[in-house]
């Protein structure tokens, strides 16, 4: 085993520039793929968070309050299409505002319950009923504005899809590029070792005995590149963790994973991400080598 490792290291050392090119290409591929994967995952978490929220919020005029909300609730319940409603008074709105901005005293100054509107959060039995409920709400007394979560969700969905599609296409193009680089590098190494390969064939080496060092070499390039990409991505996450948590901390998944980077969940997620990255890295490198071997060595 020690001899095989030494031999593999010798192969890599003898053509360092090709090896560095292969590792760097893999690094860039996995860095961008990893960043896009994380961005898409966060987008989906945000999306799920908004989807779990009340589907519609009715904001009342400054003078309106509980009586108008009760009247509207009765009207909505009468339609038989309502799952639940929740009244949020001006005082409760202020409490929520204070909780959300407790770390920023400047935002808390001069804010009183009077300037915040009372609201009614409405969840329909089926999202399709929302458009039928809209006329009932708009005709009610004291209503200033109706905010549909559907609009936010649709907007987020389109952004998430865009990120996923652009990231996916870019990741595929980079993966093809990496595959071609690995094929070229391994092809050159095969050409350099052609005489040795011919000798091995003549003295009874099996096809897999000849292929294996090249497959491991390609796999190692992928593994090294993807591991380096993971380290950089984790460093970025650690550096921007505080900003992400303060901006998106209301989303439970993000709070759980990034709230405490040393928690079991956070460590498990990081480890899972690492394993997936290096596994795909190794596979990509190994497949590149296999394709190259099929092209340059005939058994």
């Amino acid at each position: 085993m020690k001899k095989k490792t030494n031999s593999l290291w010798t192969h890599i050392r003898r053509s360092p520039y090709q090896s560095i090119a292969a590792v760097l290409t893999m690094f860039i591929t996995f860095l961008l793929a990893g960043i896009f994967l994380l961005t898409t995952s966060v987008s989906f978490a945000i999306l799920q968070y908004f989807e779990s929220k009340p589907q519609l919020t009715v904001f009342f005029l400054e003078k309106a309050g509980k009586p108008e909300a009760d009247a509207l609730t009765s009207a909505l319940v009468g339609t038989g299409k309502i799952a639940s409603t929740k009244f949020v008074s001006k005082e409760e709105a202020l409490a929520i505002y204070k909780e959300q901005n407790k770390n920023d005293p400047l935002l808390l100054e001069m804010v009183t319950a009077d300037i915040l509107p009372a609201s009614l959060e409405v969840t329909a039995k089926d999202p399709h009923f929302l458009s039928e409920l809209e006329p009932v709400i708009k005709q009610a007394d004291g209503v200033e504005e109706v905010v549909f979560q559907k609009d936010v969700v649709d907007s987020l969905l389109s952004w998430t899809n865009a990120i996923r599609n652009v990231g996916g296409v870019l990741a595929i193009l980079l993966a093809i590029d990496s595959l071609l680089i690995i094929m070229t590098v391994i092809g050159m190494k095969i050409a350099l070792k052609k005489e040795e390969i011919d000798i091995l064939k003549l003295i009874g080496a099996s096809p897999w005995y000849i292929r294996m060092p090249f497959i491991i070499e390609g796999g190692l390039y992928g593994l090294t590149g993807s591991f380096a990409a993971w380290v950089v991505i984790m460093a970025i996450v650690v550096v921007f963790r505080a900003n992400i948590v303060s901006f998106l901390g209301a989303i439970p998944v993000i709070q759980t994973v990034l709230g405490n980077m040393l928690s079991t969940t956070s460590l498990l997620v990081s480890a899972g991400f690492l394993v997936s990255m290096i596994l795909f890295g190794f596979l990509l490198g190994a497949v590149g080598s296999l394709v190259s071997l099929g092209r340059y060595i005939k058994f």
Partner: protein
Amino acid sequence: MIQLIHVSKDYGSAKKALSDISVEISDGEFVFLIGPTGAGKTTLLKLLTRELLPTEGQILIDGEDVAAIPESQLFLLRRKVGMVFQDLKLLMDRTVFENIAVGMQVLGKSEEEIEKGVMDVLGLVELTDKVNLFPVQLSQGEKQRIAIARAIVSGPKVLLADEPTGNLDPETSEDILEILKEVNQMGTTVLIVTHNSLIVDAHKKRTLTMKAGEIVSDEVKGKYHFIKRAHHDKKHEEHKEERKDHEKED
């Protein structure tokens, strides 16, 4: 052990490289294959290791039809047939130990087995003191011995040697022959292609003589006389031609 049945090899030129060769070499035999350059000796060896396929006929090694072996299983044939190549094919960037060890590594042997196997064959070829040297640090005779050691370290049933004494002085050639005879005494069938008349005459082993792609003689205790006679005949013809030319000029 080795059977050639009406074997022919055609490279596409007008003359066949091998023409209707039928010969049988039994298990444990020691055979010389001699003949002038271009007689087809190396082609015959390449057919035995399946580097080439016969155009016609059948080759059996250990009862197995060589041409019928699928490409992916060729390594199994080559493990049975050890080969000492004319150009030796040593790995110049590896030590003596590593060059021989590769013959066992391809079989998947453990490091302990490889260590023992390599040291055993190095003892046989009397080069245990050169174990850590590289091929460039060895004499031609020593390189020949390393090539033999690599060919036999995996314990093949057949050993083919293409000009194993080429470019060697008579004394070193004799040493190499003694090693090959020792390998033969251990049960390996040995087939040696050579131009070295001294060793053929001295060892009086079965000798196959080839000429123009055919086996023209098969002698139990052969001598190099055919080649000598052919050489003399050729020289005689050349002298006659020269004499005629001179007479014409006069």
